[in-house]
């Protein structure tokens, strides 16, 4: 029997309301005991966690692993290892690959490659519509049977409201979340950054907040109509946060994400044509950024998700309008969340763990297989954090194949120092 005893850390597990110095014993890949002064039998590997935080493994429900079709940017293996390096024990891989993950075979491919990856657990998602064309539903039941934990056309909205209604209704047979990228394409048309004075000065076409807001409003109404499980990805606007808050108060079944870049940066980061700050939804105003922070703080945005979007350097090395959207996020997420939200007093450490582990697990039904918790019997997935660590983001040291980040050189606090998956150390920080 393989055993690991994590000794003397501050165990923070909101799933059981726990925040205390304790030991965690993992046996045969699952949490065996949590408590003070656990004696380990001979042969137990011991990890000294004194002065560190021991949390249920962090989960990122929104990552792009680019395989198949974009292996020069990231592979399932490199992405899974980058996730582990960032403290994540599980990720949900988005299906907007080439070809898109819209069939049982492709979901199986992602799942199998994830099992071989040797990093974070990789959970596939499947497309809502065939080829992400927004015309015909995928065989959602088949995708679920192959291992998909949600369906999403991420990268594109489902513009046909009737079709999204069908998805929200049909997916209820599988209690499956339908995750949505909110963008009204006739409003965002051709836009490459936030609409406002900076876009005006730079001569770039802006995307108004309304492009996101009207779709959030529409989809909340569809979720209310159908009773389906809606998961709204990467919320970036103040009105979007308000709409979700109001819908939750009415009992609509909705979960939502706040991304580290959206609660850290504003559209000022785009100046002058910084393609590493080009993303969709775009970085918005300070008021929007503050609303995303407040949404994460009060739980309107249940989940912190990175939208890890790797791109090869020469794809970003273009004129702004020609460069692709997205930044990598797996290896900066914990530091940004701690620095921007915990160190500033907006949230406490247990809330950070709730937003990065427990809530993500619940949003994708991963709590049902014992993720997002350190209760005895749970999966032995643990992230050990050093909240006192101070470090500077150096993209050259990223494990991810891609380095496209606007945070290079930024000083952060807190980092993952060890990531255990099923009781096995998947990654350990060496200074």
């Amino acid at each position: 029997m393989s055993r690991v005893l994590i000794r003397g850390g501050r165990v923070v597990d909101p799933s059981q309301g726990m925040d205390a110095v304790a030991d965690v014993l993992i046996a045969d890949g699952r949490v065996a005991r949590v408590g003070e002064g656990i004696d380990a039998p001979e042969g137990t590997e011991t990890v000294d966690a004194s002065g560190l935080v021991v949390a249920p493994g962090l989960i990122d429900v929104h990552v792009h692993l680019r395989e198949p079709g974009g292996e020069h940017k990231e592979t399932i293996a490199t992405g899974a290892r980058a996730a582990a390096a960032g403290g994540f024990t599980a990720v949900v891989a988005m299906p907007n690959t080439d070809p898109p993950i819209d069939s049982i075979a492709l979901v199986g491919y992602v799942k199998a490659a994830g099992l071989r990856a040797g990093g974070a657990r990789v959970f596939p998602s499947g497309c809502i519509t065939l080829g992400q064309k927004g015309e015909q539903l995928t065989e959602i039941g088949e995708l679920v049977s192959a291992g998909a934990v949600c369906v999403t056309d991420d990268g594109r909205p489902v513009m046909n409201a009737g079709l999204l209604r069908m998805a929200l209704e049909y997916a209820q047979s599988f209690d499956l979340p339908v995750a949505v990228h909110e963008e009204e394409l006739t409003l965002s048309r051709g836009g490459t950054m936030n609409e406002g004075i900076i876009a005006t000065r730079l001569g770039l076409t802006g995307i108004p907040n309304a492009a996101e807001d009207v779709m959030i409003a529409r989809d909340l109404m569809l979720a209310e109509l159908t009773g389906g499980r809606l998961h709204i990805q990467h919320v970036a606007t103040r009105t979007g946060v308000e709409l979700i808050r109001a819908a939750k108060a009415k009992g609509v079944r909705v979960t939502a994400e706040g991304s580290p870049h959206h609660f850290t940066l504003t559209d000022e980061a785009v100046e002058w044509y910084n393609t590493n700050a080009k993303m969709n939804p775009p970085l918005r105003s300070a008021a929007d950024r503050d609303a995303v922070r407040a949404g994460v703080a009060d739980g309107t945005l249940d989940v912190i998700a990175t939208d890890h979007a790797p791109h090869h350097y020469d794809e970003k090395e273009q004129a702004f309008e020609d460069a692709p959207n997205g930044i990598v996020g797996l290896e900066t997420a914990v530091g940004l969340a701690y620095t921007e939200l915990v160190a500033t007093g907006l949230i406490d450490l247990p809330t950070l763990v709730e937003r990065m582990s427990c809530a993500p697990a619940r949003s994708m039904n991963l709590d049902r297989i014992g993720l997002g918790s350190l209760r005895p019997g749970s999966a032995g997935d643990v992230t050990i954090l050093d909240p006192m660590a101070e470090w500077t983001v150096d993209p050259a040291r990223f494990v991810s194949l891609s380095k496209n980040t606007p945070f290079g050189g930024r000083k952060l606090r807190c980092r993952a120092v060890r990531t255990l998956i099923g009781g096995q150390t998947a990654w350990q920080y060496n200074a």
Partner: protein
Amino acid sequence: MSAAPTSFLGKDLLALEPLTAEQIRLILDTAEPLKEISERQIKKVPTLRGKTVVNLFFEASTRTRISFEFAEKRMSADTVSIAASGSSVQKGETLVDTARNLEAMRIDMVVIRHASSGAARFLAERIESSVINAGDGKHEHPTQGLLDLLTIRDHRGTIEGLKVCICGDVLHSRVARSNIHGLKRLGAEVGVCGPLTLMPADVDALGVRWFNRIEAAIEWADVLNVLRLQLERMKGGFIPSLREYNRVFGVTRARVEAKQGDLLILHPGPMNRGVEIDSDVADGPHSVILQQVTNGVAVRMAVLYLLAGGPAPEGGDA
């Protein structure tokens, strides 16, 4: 590598937004005597002899490209003009590769026109040669802004205190942005006129006032700069029809004649006669459109000369 000397303007001319009033005045003052060269029988001076200039036009252009070519040749520079069609760009070469190749050929200056905003800056940050922005996407067209300033100054003696209204498709116009920055820097009041569908977001934050009717704009302004309605963009529903645009926002003879006092009318061309401007206005007594074209060559000669290391004014912050 033939690195350009850093001039009073800096290495490049990418936009008017960052320029000081002193820098803008220097360019205009330098252009003023250079106009005379184009009037000579032998239209050539040796100022840029031995300098190599590449005109890199990734987007269709006739008047700007020819204006630059004349300016370069009249200053005796060696020039090469490359259009996007027929270039390696069509074979998929990226802008950064183009930049590296140009740099490897030891050139002194690049004049670039590109459909993407920021492309000129992108190039300038990657090569040591001087880069002149000949229009980048919807961002800026600084030499056009300068020639507009020169033309207005020729006729009014000063820019300071003038009321200048930029009319039409400000949203898609790089000329508008350069005009706004240049005019304001030299002390003009600036207005914009057109439907809100053709105005960029928060345009008032640039320090301009918006006129929703052309009659009010004409009444207010000392100078109108009438922009080309970019017909290729009109499929997006920015305006209901060209006919309605002319009815509501067109600079017509009747509207111009109703104005009390002087009015100067500019247009960066090419014009859509009968849409944003009527022919009898374009060819009428208020119009200085052809003089803009003449001044364009002089302004571009001035910019080339100054970036090549022409003298800074005494006490200038070189």
